[in-house]
Each structure stands twice: as C-alpha cells, then as structure tokens.
C-alpha cells in the first residue's frame, strides 16, 4: 500500500528543549494510524507537525522532511493554508464556531476556500459531509440550531464534518474522544473506522485501548523518540520493544 505521508528525520524544538528526535515514519494511505505514548512524549507535537500547526508558536523550530503529495510541506513554496485544507485537523475539545448554525459550521470552509460555489452545491456538500460524519440523520431537521447547542459528541462529529467538507486527504485527530462520554466515543470510533476507507487518519490518543480498537497501525512514542511502529495486532499481542511492552501492560507511563 502506498504512503500518504512520509516523515524523514523530523526533529522539533520548543526553545532549547528538543521534543522530537529524528522521527522517521511512513503513514499508509487509507488507514488509521494511532500515535500513543505517555504525557510529554511528543505525540501531539508530532501530529501538529504534519500540517504545520506550530508555524506561529513562538520559539518553535523544526528540521527534517514531511513529504506529502511528493513535496516537503516545510519547503518555502508550500502555502500552509492550502496544506491544511488537504491535511485537516480535529481537536480534543469540540470547537464549533459559536455564532454559527450547525449548517454554517460545515459550510464555512467551502465559502472561504477555493472556487465560488452555488448555494445548492454548498447544500449538497454540507449534506454529504454530515452523512460521512454520521450526523445527518440526527441533524437534518435541526440544521439551523447553533452548533454550540449540540451535545458534545454531536459537536465533535460536526467538527469532523467541517473538516471533511473541504475534501481533505488526511485527517489528523488530537485526542478526539477524550472529552466525550462512552457512547459518543463509540460513535466517533466507528466513524473513524468507516472514514479510513476514504481518508488517511492519524489519531493521537493516550487511551491505548482506543488505539487497539480503531487502528491499523500504532506508533509508540517515548520522550521524543519513536520507539516502535507496527500493525496494531502486533503491538498489542507481541510488541518488539521492551519499552512498548512495559507501557501497554501498564508497567510505567
């Protein structure tokens, strides 16, 4: 299978503190890759590097390559706004735009991004995105409700729909379920599995059970190093590195 992203020798620093050390990782297209590890291991920093979310962070510095669509995303010729349309992100806390309706939340990306679309084109795209985010049935008669009035799980699916509306190739998710109840979590997890038919998904989680449930591949980070990356079944039944074994069996972390 082809790679959607290829990370080569990626290092990152906040000031003098190095948080990522020579990370090399191939992220397979149309698969779910989970990044797990104890707090402070660099997992969130890592996925934020994949769509240049740190560009404006004071003191942040990065070296190495992240190859997407055949080009290094850190080259001067890359427009980070265009990049983030192709490599979308969903955050830990659902963050719908508070003054917008559910409909507008999904449509907004289309209005600000790319070519001009007719009203019906936008309506179709909103419906399609909400369907993909498994929210359409619940929401189709309430599209004019404020996005912030939905339940937490619905808000998170709304954010996923918003990210999907601009037709990304890669979806980055930073702890997408840690603010949600178990039922909403199960819905998002199922959604992630479904979306991986069409999208490449990278999920940061410190919930290793969740990593086991949703992932095709799992990467284990520790203190800025990528310790091990393998198929989820391998990581959770017979990991190669002793540190991975100790982490997933709860010996430390």
């Amino acid at each position, binding site marked *: 299978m082809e790679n959607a992203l290829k990370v080569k020798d990626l290092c990152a620093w906040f000031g003098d503190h190095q948080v990522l050390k020579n990370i090399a990782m191939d992220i397979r297209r*149309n*698969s*779910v890759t989970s990044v797990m590890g104890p707090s402070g291991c660099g997992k969130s920093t890592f996925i934020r590097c994949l769509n240049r979310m740190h560009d404006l962070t004071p003191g942040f510095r990065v070296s190495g390559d992240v190859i997407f669509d055949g080009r290094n995303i850190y080259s001067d010729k890359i427009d980070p706004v265009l990049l983030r349309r192709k490599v979308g992100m969903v955050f830990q806390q659902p963050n719908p735009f508070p003054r917008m309706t559910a409909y507008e939340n999904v449509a907004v990306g289309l209005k600000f991004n790319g070519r001009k679309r007719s009203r019906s084109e936008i309506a179709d795209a909103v419906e399609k995105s909400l369907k993909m985010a498994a929210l359409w049935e619940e929401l189709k008669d309430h599209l004019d409700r404020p996005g912030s009035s939905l339940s937490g799980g619905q808000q998170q699916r709304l954010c996923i729909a918003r990210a999907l509306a601009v037709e990304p190739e890669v979806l980055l998710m930073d702890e997408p379920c840690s603010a949600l109840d178990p039922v909403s979590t199960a819905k998002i997890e*199922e959604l992630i*599995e479904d979306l*991986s*038919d069409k999208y490449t998904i990278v999920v940061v989680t410190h919930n290793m*059970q969740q990593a*086991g*449930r*949703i*992932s*095709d591949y799992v990467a284990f980070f520790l203190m800025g190093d990528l310790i091990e990356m393998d198929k*989820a*079944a391998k990581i*959770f*039944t017979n990991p190669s590195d002793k540190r991975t074994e100790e982490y997933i069996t709860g010996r430390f972390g």
Partner: protein
Amino acid sequence: MKKHYREELGNLRETVLRMGGLIEQMTHRAIQALVERKIEMLAEVKAMEIQVNQLHIDIDEICLEMIALRQPTAADLRFIAAAMKINTDMERIGDQAINVTERAEFLLTVPPVKPLIDIPRMADIAKEMLRDALDAFVNGNDQLAYDAIKKDDLVDQLKDQVFRELLTYMMADPTTIPRALDLILVSRHLERIADHATNICEDVIFMVKGKDVRHQGPLA
C-alpha cells in the same frame, strides 16, 4: 480499512462454523469409508485435516487479537473465550477422525470380522451431538446444548456394547484379535469425539448463561 467489531465477531463465528463443518465431514467420511469399504475415501479425510489445522491456528489468532484490540466484555468476552476452547476440542475431534482413518487403513486390507452396526450408530450420534453443539454455539441456544450432552450416555453404552461383542469374537477365534482390537479402537475414537462434543456444549452453556456446568455429574 478496519472491520467493525460486530463484523469481526461475525467473522469469528463463521470461522468456527467452517471448522465445525469440516470435522463433522471428516468423521462422516472416515466411518463411511470403513463401512462401505472404500479405502480411496480416506485420502479425502486427510486432505480436510490440513484445512482444519490451519483453521485451528487462525481461530486462536483471531481470538487473541480481539482480546488484545477490542477489550471484549460480558457476553462478547464469554463468546470469544468459548470460541478458543471450542477450537481446541474441534482440533482434537479432527485428530480422532484421523485416528479412525488409520485404523481403517488396516481394516480395509483384511476381510471384515462382522458387519458393522453399532459403530455407524455411534458415529451418527456423535455427529449429531457435534452438529447440535455447533448450532447451539452459533445460535446461543443453551437448551440444545443441554439436550446434546444427554446423548453422550448413549454413545458410552454403545462403546461398551461394541467391546463386549468383539470380546466374544476374539475368544472364539484368536485370529480375529488384530481386527477386533482395531474396531474397539475405532469405537473408542468415536466415544472421544462425543466427549469433545460434550465439552463444546458445556462451553456453549457457559457462553449463553455464564454458568459453569462442568464436573457436576449428570445434568438435571
């Protein structure tokens, strides 16, 4: 990419069923070859064992992965635990069917001691128990499992009957001893198949009811 949990459970159920179908067929063919004196049929049984052995490995792998990746609980956990245990019993049934073919390889090269009557009856009951056990597993039907367990006594009785009858043949004519002994072993293999089917039923009852009915003497 990744299959849903429910699909994985369904896939496990189907894989167990596929293996169950094969061992039932192995038992059936091994006895048929012996009764109808068709030595060429034995090769078929051996070919099926290769598939059974592969499924034995596959099922354990599926179960282990599901436990590691899906953290099954309650009914799902009991289902997966049952599948792992049933897997072992099924593989042993396949081995017993192979044992029958090994006895048959000798028996089909020599004249029959007597017409076979009780052995095919034992085989029919053992296959029925096995089929019921697997149906009970697939449908979560504990009553069917209870009923199947009761048939084990019949198989045991038939085994004793086969033994007593062949003993008289051996006493009357010692030249029948090698053949009679092999027939006694065949009845022993069938009795073991019924025992494994009983184990499967017990695992099914635990799966459905969460109640352990092993080692408690006759079931009410």
